[in-house]
């Protein structure tokens, strides 16, 4: 359902980029106009090239024949090319390109002076959201990787872009910094209403942040669907192998501080997750590794696994040794990877009701 806001922020892309006689990307899609679109795929799939083409950093000659328009504003077409500086698009790079001759504050002021639109985002909001109050008078060269990324993000936000592009911003960070920046990104997503396109080859990042996923392979669109659909897609699961994970969304209702658990409501059912810090009455995304989902025909009460959710089997794909089972739980879709043998032994089939034993970890 596209309302006025969505229509004002739809990005339409038909990109063809060639270097020499090698075609780097050739794809066509349209965004929903809000939320986060993830560009997912292995390294070299053309994700960054696509992002740069949207931003206007690919030369007109290399991207000849491409069409890019945002909210009806034509950025690139046959015979016309709007310069990057006029597009009002923000780009957060993998290695922050902070202006080395200015302090952090100077960098932010540089961006703020050239804001693409007069509305919205305030200085204090951005500084707080990205947590950089203490860094304002420092110089970029003295900042750690994580600090530089936070400043880079703040700088881009203060610039008031209409569309925010992020090119693997977490890639060069250590796990702790990565965690911190992801929290900030989630906060930014919730607080500032800017459609985002997020490039990553890591599914655990995509699954936390994205609403829709464009799966790129060899510069072409392999699949384009909502996150919830792709999270339980068989082709995707096979591609991801050990990394495959899906998600459940639920509301936290109760914290057991004694046992360090939080109770999450999922429809009429509930789960316990081992994180006592979750905000009550807030929605949370739960990451579920498909290998961590066990299926049984009866409810598991005497098991070490805390959770046993009643689901209905929607679809099964049998492999050589393993099988992928798609489940419906309270209207949400789940994926479980079990052995083929178990599948046959339990006579699992479409429509059968099973209980899923889930080890969940929290995403947000």
């Amino acid at each position, binding site marked *: 359902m596209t309302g006025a806001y969505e229509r004002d922020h739809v990005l339409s892309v038909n990109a063809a980029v060639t270097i020499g006689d090698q075609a780097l990307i050739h794809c066509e899609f349209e965004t929903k106009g809000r939320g986060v679109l993830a560009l997912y795929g292995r390294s070299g799939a053309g994700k960054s090239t696509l992002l740069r083409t949207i*931003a206007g*950093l690919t030369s007109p000659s290399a991207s000849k024949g491409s069409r890019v328009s945002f909210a009806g504003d034509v950025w690139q077409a046959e015979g016309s090319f709007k*310069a*990057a*500086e*006029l597009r*009002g*698009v*923000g*780009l957060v*790079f993998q*290695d922050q*390109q*902070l*202006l*080395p*001759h200015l302090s952090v504050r100077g960098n932010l002021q*540089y*961006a703020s002076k*050239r*804001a*693409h639109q007069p509305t919205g985002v305030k200085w204090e909001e951005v500084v707080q959201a990205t947590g950089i109050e203490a860094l304002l008078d420092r110089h970029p*060269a003295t900042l750690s990787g994580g600090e530089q990324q936070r400043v880079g993000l703040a*700088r*881009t936000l203060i*610039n008031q872009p209409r569309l925010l592009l992020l090119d693997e911003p977490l890639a060069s960070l250590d796990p702790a910094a990565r965690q911190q920046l992801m929290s900030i990104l989630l906060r930014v997503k919730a607080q500032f209403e800017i459609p985002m396109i997020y490039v990553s080859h890591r599914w655990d990042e995509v699954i936390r942040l994205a609403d829709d996923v464009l799966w790129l392979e060899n510069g072409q669109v392999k699949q384009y669907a909502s996150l919830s659909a792709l999270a339980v897609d068989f082709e995707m699961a096979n591609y991801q192998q050990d990394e495959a994970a899906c998600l459940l969304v639920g509301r936290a209702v109760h914290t057991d501080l004694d046992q360090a658990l939080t109770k999450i409501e999922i429809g009429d059912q509930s789960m316990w997750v081992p994180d006592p810090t979750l905000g009550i009455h807030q929605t949370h995304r739960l990451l579920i590794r498909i290998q961590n989902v066990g299926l049984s025909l009866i409810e598991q009460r005497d098991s070490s696994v805390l959770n046993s959710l009643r689901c209905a089997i929607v679809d099964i794909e049998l492999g050589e040794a393993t099988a992928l089972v798609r489940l419906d739980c309270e209207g949400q879709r789940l994926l479980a990877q079990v052995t083929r043998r178990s599948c046959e032994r339990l006579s699992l089939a479409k429509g059968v009701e099973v209980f899923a034993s889930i080890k969940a970890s929290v995403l947000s």
Partner: protein
Amino acid sequence: MSVEWAVITTTIQLALTTTLVLALMGLPLAWWLARSDSFIARLAQPLVSLPLVLPPTVIGFYLLLAFSPKGGLGKLWLTTFDRSLAFSFAGLVIGSTIYSLPFFVQPMVVAFKQIPSSIIDASRLLGAKAIDRFFTIALPLGRHGFLVACVMTFAHTIGEFGIVLMIGGNIPEETRVVSIALFDYVEAMDYQRAHILAGGLVAFAFISLLIVEWLNQSHLRDSHRRLGL
């Protein structure tokens, strides 16, 4: 032993003026050459380097023709300022600018080329248009190269001879510079004065190079500090 102070002040004035003129027109030119891929830019590069390989007397000869009241430039100057361009300080400045052009532009192009494209991309996406980028990115980040280019241009102009010989006219306090005076002393077999001037030029050249070396070293130290090395 009297020293011709007027000759030294004229020479320094010429070098300073030339450096100033080149700074004003050379900076945008160098920025364009460093970042543009256009056909014209690629053609301009060897043109800028031309004075390096042309004998000064050749440049001087063509300038002489251009500055004469019949030549294009000379005629324009005469109608605009009612003065002859040949044998004037202004004429020397024009000649020196051409002669020292590569000495200013080439180090500047190198300095500008060292600015990472990604920084420029970042500034573009923040909304900085071309002129904005020149003043807020190119100039601040090309600071070091600018100092080196200025010192090189200044030193090179001080030593200029061939062109001044042709188009200067050796007019005291206007176009009589140290190199011309040196030539006169040698011609007149006044070797004592010649030694003084020549020695002064050598010392000056040496000091200039020392300054460039010092600038390079301190820039290197700054870069290392910034990278945390």
